[in-house]
């Protein structure tokens, strides 16, 4: 599941903090960030400063319920579980 272009990164990450389980961001280069950790959020911000890296990454949910919380920020397609 991909993130929509032009989202507000801070609002997105704040919403991630509300999720009950882990939310992963995976880049095509193989980076895997658990977005509830502060350091991972900082890394995500740095990666997100390049729109290409940002939109080519995939979001995965440990708990599918959390997907609803982030639906405003995600492209409409089936989410992946891990």
């Amino acid at each position, binding site marked *: 599941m991909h993130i929509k272009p032009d989202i507000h*990164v*801070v609002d997105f*990450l*704040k919403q991630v903090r509300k999720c009950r389980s882990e939310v992963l961001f995976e*880049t095509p*280069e*193989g*980076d*895997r*960030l658990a977005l509830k950790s*502060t*350091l*991972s*959020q*900082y*890394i995500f*911000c*740095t*990666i997100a*400063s*390049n729109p290409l*890296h940002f939109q080519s990454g995939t979001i995965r949910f440990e708990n599918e319920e959390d997907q609803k919380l982030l639906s405003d920020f995600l492209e409409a397609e089936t989410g992946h579980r891990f």
Partner: protein
Amino acid sequence: MNLQERLDFFQQLIQCSHNLPLHSYEPELILTNSDIPPEAASRDDATFILLSLGDSIRSHIEKGIREPLFVDDHLGLIWIVVFEYEKNLPRGIHTLGPAYSGRNSYQNMKKELDKHDLSVSSRIKVFKMFEHIPIIPTSQLFQYAVMLHYCVTGRRITTNDLHFAEKSTQKQSSSEIHLITEEHRGIWLAEQEFMNMLREGNPNYLDALARCSSLSDGPRFDVGDSLRRAKSTSIVLLTLCSRTAIEGGVTPSVAYTLNDYYMQMIEDCKNIAEASTACHILVEDYVQRIQQEKSKNAVSGQIQNICNYIAIHIKEKLTITQLAKQAGYTEYYFSHKFKNETGCSVADYIKREKIQQAKLLLSGTKMSIQEISDELSFGSRSYFSSSFQKETGLSPSEYREQNMKL
């Protein structure tokens, strides 16, 4: 200069020493200088600020606190936040940071980053971002906060007025950098002044404490953990306070019990901000207890106030006329009341206090005897020497010879 020009100038001054970014926000936390290109490092800093500081800033504004806020996160990154108000409404928020609190904060950050096993391209980008963050001792950041507050509001405050972000749920691990010189000049004197004020229960002890803080950020040792260092420094302050409180009239059992209580509080702190807050609480508690003990004695509030006044103005020429006026009594009544309550005359009391101060200057500075005599308004060197000899049994030079601390 208008505010923007002052802020620009302030940033240029800081940039002379450190690459410490200054950002301005609207009260709703929208970046004011939004002309920063999206790929700029400062844009990342601004995002960090919103992520790490947003809740603390909102809570600070909601509480109506106008003094600067000091925030440190568990990764060892520190920010200073200064608030701009127009009448009663927040008009702007100015942030200085991030900075590392200590030498190995960056190393700790690197270790954490290594755990993420990032790809080469992300790694370069992320490390570049964390590498440009400067390492600045917390005491210096406190001074920057005071200066930025003055720059924004035009109001002078001291480091005692800083507020610290509450609550931390994660551990922080970092170490302090040693940027202070190898000398301890002036610290002992400032410390003695602070303890004298504490012993008297003088509410103006904060000024003396600020002087101590400006000269030193604590004992010099490096265990590679700035939080441990902050806690140890706080425990040194606690020990000084508890012993001084006993001299000030608090019973040893109360002073020691409080000592244990506050030591536990310090050990439980999860970041430097919490340790600083604990220090303020413990000093204030000891001062209030000393004041309570003093008030139990025969000395009335008015005479205690005059004693405090004498302590603050010890360097000036003090007369009974002036002190009586200050207390709101006639000279005759004031002199009698003072002697009844303290057991000595006003003149003897002032002389004794001046001699105490002279002892500090003789042992803690290199000022000449003439300079000390002038500093304490004795009138002449010979009068100072004879008064000193009468009180202590030693001449000023003999006293210095035996007690020099430098």
